[in-house]
């Protein structure tokens, strides 16, 4: 049988670096084909070639046995390639229907195009199960449904090959299950789905075959029925993975940070954190799980002093923190260090050299100079951090944005952890970083805990929360909806709590 999609020796170079080097693989009609690899392995470049956004330097792509060479995304769409990006390309103020017909309005007057799109949407619903209300406004929809709109948009344009780029990164476990259901239905309907992910469990769950990429090339292709997560991971990073050993032994220490009935509003006045109380003890990692947008981010930023606290009290080692001290500078002085959720927005200055980012927040310290900043000292400090944390390339003068996500994250961790924090607030420590950096980050956090520090961890990755935390709090709708110990719960139970199900445990 002729494969629906075939890559033959596809090569793409940027400067002297081969982002894709002779990539060849096939995907059949009616299959879900996984593509896994670390950041920078070449997955995105390969997909951008498939979608017509870039052109290959060598090699070609065949659809149903016929060679194609797309000059533009428009050409790719015409040939039935549908791409669902990680970041949705939807216009929030418009309805589902209008978003779906965007770019395919079918003439200057919208009524005809709208009717046609509505009819096709109804047909899709018949074939693939529940769709979305065509007249709902995107801004009102939860993330899972928005993603469904993206998929429907691709299908309505006649996509037979659907590319899903990290589709589960933004979903709750339950939404992920829904997505997988839809993917299987589409597969059964004859579609060819390319599923790009770095979550090995998901790839094993939903894919038939998995192609593993590393450094621009293919290092292996596996039948999911005959492989394991460990083997995939080993192929992905080129060596066996050592999961950071987490020996939760000690009895919890004294309460370092005490928050009572903390309430936080966003600048428009909407309540985001609605009365959260928690105790953070020395020598523990307290994980907070939740679907993004349920107040965890605001809580973390409020504790770091970046957001005002509308009501409630904070105390460190029993001493109340008054409103005057609730700013990042004063909190740092109290020993509260902060690894922010969004490293490029908050944690670093992308345009600055790494040395400039490596002193962010601590630039007032005497170690960086007296009245005038001491450039040599700043660069030496950064170089030392790079050496200690294996940050590559070890170039303090390179622009911060020139580093990979993992190395950027290590720079922040180095900066915050080396300041000997009393309390470390950590948001999404491993979002978008490669496995090597994940290992390093986890090991450092566990070491910090072992040193008796208190760590508050917020992550959208349930696996991470489960692996690192000594206790887990679940947040939903700005409130704590449950507390679990990692040994006594499952991802499924946490997922239900995250989605707002009533806490039935004692």
């Amino acid at each position, binding site marked *: 049988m002729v494969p629906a999609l075939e890559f033959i020796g596809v090569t793409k170079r940027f400067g002297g670096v081969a982002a894709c080097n002779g990539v060849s693989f096939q995907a059949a009609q009616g299959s879900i084909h996984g593509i896994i690899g670390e950041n920078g392995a070449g997955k995105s470049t390969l997909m951008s070639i498939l979608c017509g956004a870039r052109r290959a330097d060598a090699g070609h792509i065949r659809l149903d046995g016929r060679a194609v060479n797309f000059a533009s995304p428009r050409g790719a769409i015409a040939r039935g390639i549908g791409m669902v990006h990680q970041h949705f390309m939807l216009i929030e103020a418009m309805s589902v229907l209008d978003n779906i017909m965007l770019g395919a309005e079918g003439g200057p007057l919208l009524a005809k195009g709208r009717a046609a799109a509505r009819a096709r949407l109804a047909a899709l619903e018949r074939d693939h199960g529940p769709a979305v209300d065509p007249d709902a406004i995107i801004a009102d929809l939860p993330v899972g449904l928005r993603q469904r709109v993206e998929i429907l948009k691709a299908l309505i344009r006649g996509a037979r090959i659907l590319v899903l780029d990290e589709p589960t990164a933004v979903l709750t476990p339950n939404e992920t299950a829904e997505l997988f259901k839809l993917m299987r239905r589409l597969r059964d309907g004859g579609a060819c789905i390319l599923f790009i992910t770095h979550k090995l469990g998901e790839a094993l769950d939903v894919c038939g075959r998995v192609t593993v990429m590393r450094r621009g090339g293919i290092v292996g292709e596996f039948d999911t029925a005959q492989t394991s997560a460990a083997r995939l991971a080993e192929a992905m990073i080129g060596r066996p993975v050592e999961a950071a050993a987490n020996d939760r032994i000690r009895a919890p220490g004294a309460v370092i940070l005490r928050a009572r009935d903390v309430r936080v509003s966003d600048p428009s006045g909407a309540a985001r954190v609605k009365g959260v109380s928690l105790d953070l003890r020395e020598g523990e990692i307290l994980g907070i799980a939740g679907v993004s947008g349920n107040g965890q981010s605001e809580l973390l930023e409020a504790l770091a*002093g970046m957001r005002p606290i509308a009501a409630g009290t904070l105390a460190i080692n029993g001493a109340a923190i008054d409103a005057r001290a609730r700013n990042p500078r004063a909190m740092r002085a109290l020993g509260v260090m902060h690894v922010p959720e969004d490293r490029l927005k908050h944690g670093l*200055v*992308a345009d600055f050299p790494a040395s400039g980012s490596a002193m962010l927040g601590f630039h007032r310290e005497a170690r960086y100079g007296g009245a005038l900043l001491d450039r040599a000292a700043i660069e030496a400090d950064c170089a030392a951090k790079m050496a200690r944390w294996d940050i590559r390339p070890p170039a303090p003068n390179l622009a911060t944005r020139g580093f990979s996500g993992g190395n950027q994250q290590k720079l922040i961790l180095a900066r915050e952890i080396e300041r000997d924090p009393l309390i470390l607030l950590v948001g999404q420590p491993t979002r978008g970083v490669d496995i090597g950096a994940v290992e390093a980050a986890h090991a450092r956090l566990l070491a910090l805990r072992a040193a008796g520090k208190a760590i508050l961890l917020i992550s959208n990755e349930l696996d991470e929360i489960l692996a690192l935390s000594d206790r887990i709090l679940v947040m939903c709708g700005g409130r704590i909806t449950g507390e679990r110990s990692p040994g006594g719960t499952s991802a499924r139970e946490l997922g239900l709590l995250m989605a707002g199900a009533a806490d039935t445990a004692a």
Partner: protein
Amino acid sequence: MSGPPAVWQAAGPVLAPLAVALAAISIIVAAAGENPAAALRTLAAGSLGSREGLAMTLFYTTDFIFAGLAVSVAFRAGLFNIGVEGQAMAAGIGIALAALYAGALPGALALPALALAGAAGGALWALVPAWLQARRGSHIVITTIMFNFIAGALLGFLLNGPLGAPGSMQPESPAFPAAAAMPRLDDALRAMGMTPTDTPLNLCLPLALAAAFAAHVLFERTRLGYEMAVLGASPPAAAYAGISPARIMMLAMILSGILGSGLALNELTGAQNRLILEFTGGYGFVGIAIALTGRNRPAGIVLAALLFGALYQGGAELAFERPKITRDMIVLVQGLIVLMAGCFGARARSGEA
């Protein structure tokens, strides 16, 4: 913070608009029926090739350095200060008040007092929009533009009333006392028995160069400069780092206003020796193009200011020497250069990524 010396990094974006400017001038001159090569020679000789021309070029350069630095110091902190013009006017009012009402100061103190009064006026005029932005969220582009109008109206009111020279129907202040005149290059030349240049080039030029050096130190070597750069590059990162945006905005705008006051000092104590309307000559706006061309680096700004100074002076020379080339064509070319500077400046910025 690294790479080749700032001067050479800055030269590229200055040379590119220069090339475009020369090409534009050639086309316009040819269209007017003149010989482009001869016109370019006039331009070069008129701006750099004679003592008078060079001195006038440097006089304009002084204005442009101050204006460019004023724009860039605000821009470093992410603030687009369109109000250098108005801040210079307010500085001029301060200078005139000091010159006319505090004239009793001994000679050695008079000029520093004038400079301080000007700096205070410029800083005050910059501070209000900064405060509105920091505390009320009023967009600084809008408020500084409006403050230009208010400054112009205030200047007009003062010169038509309280500060106006009695008996003169021209809206200008009485002449400043002699102690309020900035020492000119000509004074030095005369003292050395050399022919004066008959130009207003004065001590403000070294002052402008010193200001450029101070700005360089501020940007590259101080914590304030670092905090300004963080705020300018990424307000969220500044919030994360505990840098108060309000404080930095106000400081940056105060510095911007003080630098803008140099323009007033050069024009009023160096050239006009009285307060007149529109002594700012639109240089505050040209400062935006200069900051862009100089990529917000003091060394680049000095080079860009020299380029614009030469084009202003050379343009005047063209109009003198070539009757067919009218003032409007010169203005057209200057406009094109500002546009080109904007384009190349923007390209340079995006190319840094």
